[in-house]
């Protein structure tokens, strides 16, 4: 299976790339030896993800899912962010090749990790 047009669009024109210098939630998942590392930077204000950016080392799919995930949760609540799944991200992109579903579809994991760490640190249940 080839990449969908939407995957290619996110890959060629990734949204929300880079770092947030004053991020208050950061998480990194993956491993260079597996070919994918995704790092998410979040600026959380109250219950809201005010801003989100990413850095990704990885294939086209890894970059596209990172970009897509940031679009899905920017301006959303922490609860909504935690409800976003890997499968939803893939569905939003019109699907991913089977081999990419596990190795490259890591952005939701990074997002959840960042949000959960933030909630724990701030005593949010």
């Amino acid at each position, binding site marked *: 299976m080839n990449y969908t047009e939407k995957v*290619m669009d996110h890959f060629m024109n*990734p949204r929300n790339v880079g770092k947030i210098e004053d991020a208050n939630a950061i998480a990194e998942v993956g491993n260079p030896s597996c070919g994918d*590392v995704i790092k998410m930077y979040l600026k959380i204000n109250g219950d809201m993800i005010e801003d989100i950016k990413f850095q990704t080392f990885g*294939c086209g799919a*890894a970059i596209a899912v990172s970009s897509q995930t940031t679009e899905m949760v920017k301006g959303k609540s922490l609860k909504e962010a935690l409800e976003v799944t890997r499968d939803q991200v893939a569905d939003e992109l019109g699907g991913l090749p089977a081999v990419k579903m596990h190795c490259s579809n890591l952005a939701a994991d990074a997002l959840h990790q960042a949000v959960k760490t933030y909630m724990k640190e701030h005593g949010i249940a």
Partner: protein
Amino acid sequence: MQRIYLDYNATTPVRAEVRDAVLPFLNELFGNPSSRHFEGRQVKTKIEAARDQVAKAIDADPERIVFNAGATEGNVTVLRGYQVNYKEKKGRNHIIISAVEHPCIYDTAKKMAGEGYEVTIVPVNGDGDLDLAFLKSAIKDTTGLISVMTVNNETGVIYPIKEIAKIAHEKGILFHTDAAQAIGKMPFSVKDIDADFVTLSGHKCYAPKGVGALYIKKGKRLDPLLTGGHQENNRRAGTENVVGMVALGKALELATAEMSADRERIGKIRDEFERRVLAEVPHARRNGGAGNRLYTTSNISFRFVEGEAIQLKLDYHGIAVSTGSACSSGTLDPSHVVMAMCGGDEEEAHSSIRFSFGKYSKMEEVDYVVGRIKEVIAQLRSFSPLYDKFMNSKPK
């Protein structure tokens, strides 16, 4: 958009002269070469002429050439069929291969290891050169076959096959070389090398996909994979791929005639390309080739970015390349070849791109390609967490 094809090691276009040579066989020359009537005899004559052309290109006698479906078939036939040469058959079940063989050898040998064969894989160093001392010390009484490729498909590294054939023969062991990337591109004499079996492929040298040939030295045999027909002198059953045979013959005849001019011209393009990339792109590293290397290939790792992403971006800019990264191959492992050379550094293996040049490559394209590479690598690094980490760890 104008395309720039830099993936000649993956496959080559069919040359116009080759296409023209086969057209009659898609029209009036349709006979079955096994038939005794006029239609059959006419075609039989032509495939024997093609066999002569192939034989001449590798300095072999024509009756030693078996046409087949390509390098995979040739290589698997050798691995699966060599034991027929030994009286003590099952006792010669030890095979030695290199760590950088094509998957059709590497994976088949690994599969055979689970079927009662013993397989030793000879490592390469960071330049891609084979550890010959290791190879010699791996030889034992049960060794039946040593198989080392002539030229590596991913790096272009040339292996000392004449020397390895000699080592094998001193111990009474058969020697095979997969020469798919070499034949038609560099001088190749089966007699000089003294190989027992040689594999070659049509679509790597401007003939169509689906045809290849196997050289079997006089006095040696291989148990055929395909049985049930007398074709190819009982060495490969099935009605002949006439179009493929005629094409392969023509392609190798042309390649032999044009070899030295091609070598000069293509080598200059590859060298200029590589010099510029290594000089102009920071943190780029060449994989292999401090020693002897074929003039067609340049394999480069671009640290901090992943190969498939580079490949996709270059494709968008009209440039076709390939990558040793796992992400393009449908498996989860990066290239075992580049891994073997990166000393197990998987990140660098994931970052490797193979540029391979050929007949229709032009020096004028180098500037555009280098420009796009610089742009694409800079873009991808701009949001690579590995690059960010690296830049921040440097003393200011």
